């Protein structure tokens, strides 16, 4: 028995720093958020009275919350597949070592080094209604100006474009690494068997790449749920709340409306959704992943 107790003490010493930070700055605030979500709070954030599940009831009754939930789902449906298809395409095209591939690889990973604030600025210039690049180009070809950030239906597409543009770098890096890690012998026997092109992609490359695709999928979904920077810098949730996503609505409730308990409830619901989806992905999707 002496061994077990001894090991526990040894392990504690190594774990303590990380655990300390985790408890103080992640666990404690999260527990407090859960507590706040069932209480009512005043502008200073002190708990006043026990509110029970009023916040949650009001949450699902409020039209604005339903809108932001809908927006988030639309946002995910646009960004996650978009990011995966684009980064997969790029990875496949640059996996073989050919002349000039180095340049393309560097360019494709470029966006990973760009911050949310900077990316938002780049695209604010691109989307500017009068002197933005996109509208000027459209007008040059005789098209009609598009309200990228002012049109209710297009705004969500615009911020999805920015998000895809930002996330591609990271996902591309993972998928390229994945392609490189596939054992060459699989391709050799595919070549011998005369399987090539589309068939090879479907039967050899994708299955063997599935652990990486799965990893990129999980990361993209979690990031999409928690994305905030682009909205805060470009559209402030507008126009007409069409880009008001879950985290932005929490930000607004905390910093604008001082409804800490209402925001706390939204925070808890967001956590449940994200964990639920991640567990779902772990259980269901992972089954179809083939590990080498």
């Amino acid at each position, binding site marked *: 028995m002496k061994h077990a107790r001894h090991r526990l003490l040894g392990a504690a010493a190594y774990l303590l720093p990380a655990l300390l930070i985790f408890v103080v700055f992640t*666990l404690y605030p999260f527990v407090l958020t859960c507590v706040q979500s069932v209480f009512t709070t005043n502008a200073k954030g002190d708990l006043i009275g026990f509110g029970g599940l009023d916040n949650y009831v009001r949450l699902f009754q409020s039209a604005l919350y339903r809108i932001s939930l809908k927006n988030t789902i639309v946002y995910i449906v646009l960004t996650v597949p978009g990011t995966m298809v684009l980064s997969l395409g790029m990875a496949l095209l640059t996996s073989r070592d050919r002349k000039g591939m180095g340049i393309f690889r560097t360019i494709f990973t470029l966006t990973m080094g760009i911050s949310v604030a900077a990316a938002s600025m*780049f695209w604010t*210039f691109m989307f500017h209604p009068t002197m933005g*690049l996109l509208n000027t180009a459209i007008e040059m070809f005789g098209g009609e100006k598009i309200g990228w950030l002012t049109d209710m239906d297009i705004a969500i597409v615009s911020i999805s474009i920015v998000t895809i543009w930002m996330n591609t770098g990271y996902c591309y890096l*993972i998928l390229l690494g994945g392609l490189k890690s596939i054992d060459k012998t699989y391709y050799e026997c595919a070549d011998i068997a005369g399987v090539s092109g589309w068939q090879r992609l479907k039967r050899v490359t994708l299955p063997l790449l599935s652990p990486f695709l799965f990893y990129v999928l999980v990361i993209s979904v979690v990031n999409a749920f928690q994305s*905030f920077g682009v909205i805060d810098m470009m559209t402030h949730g507008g126009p007409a709340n069409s880009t008001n996503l879950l985290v932005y609505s929490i930000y607004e409730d905390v910093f604008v409306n001082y409804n800490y308990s209402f925001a706390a409830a939204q925070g808890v619901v967001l956590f449940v959704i994200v964990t639920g989806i991640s567990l779902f992905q772990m259980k269901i999707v992972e089954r179809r992943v083939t590990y080498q």
Partner: protein
Amino acid sequence: MKKYSLALLYAVLILLAVLMVFPLLFTILLSLSDNADIMNGQYWPQVLHFENYAEAFTKANLLYYMKNSVIVAAVTTFCQVALALLAAYAIVFIPFRGSGIVFGLFMSGMMIPMDVLMITNFQTINAAGLLNTYAGIILPCIGSAFGIFLLRQNMKQIPLELKEASDIAGVGQFYFFRKVVVPLSKNSIITLAVYCFLVSWNNYLWPLIATTKDEVRTIQIGLRMLSASDTQQDFRLVAAATMIVTIPTLILMFFGQSRLQEGLTKGALK
């Protein structure tokens, strides 16, 4: 590859490259012209205004912010890597009963959106008197769950026999950690360091909340303040500031790219 499909391949690649780089080029263009040209939609600046960059540095105090960003990002990265190394080592090499639960706890940390916890963390920092200090910005960000995940993946590839051999040779835990585990995880450590530096450098809302004075604010806040100002948008200045903010990380990406790719792939292989 037939000649025809090779040409097609390169055409598509160039198109994709243009798609990725264009926002950057357009901003560089803006940062070199002056407002009058921009206003009436004339893009190719006849005269390159490099003084925009100088003005951006002074007016928006960017040099100051950049110094803070470097300090904060460097110290955060160092702590994140150190803590992740220690925690991952305990989880992999010291088999105690609760190690699975502890790892699960850290992983759940990845799910909690940081933005939700900001006000509470602000109150904690304020109570601890750490407002307006680098520590105030850094401490809440150094518990990197991703770091522990990545290093644990890597450490699991180290054969357990090395630990047993060390136990028998009479070498202490820390000696084995320092002399064997850390050197063998060098690759992942560098990958994690580059990743953490980028995340910390790009950190956006928390540094603003954790500070009330300009002395300790990071560069992303400078950019946010510049763009969110409700006055007439001074496009060329904002464009120049944006470029100044982005160049350091682009350079880091340029060099860290291959190392990052290798490390992250290993991390992804559960």
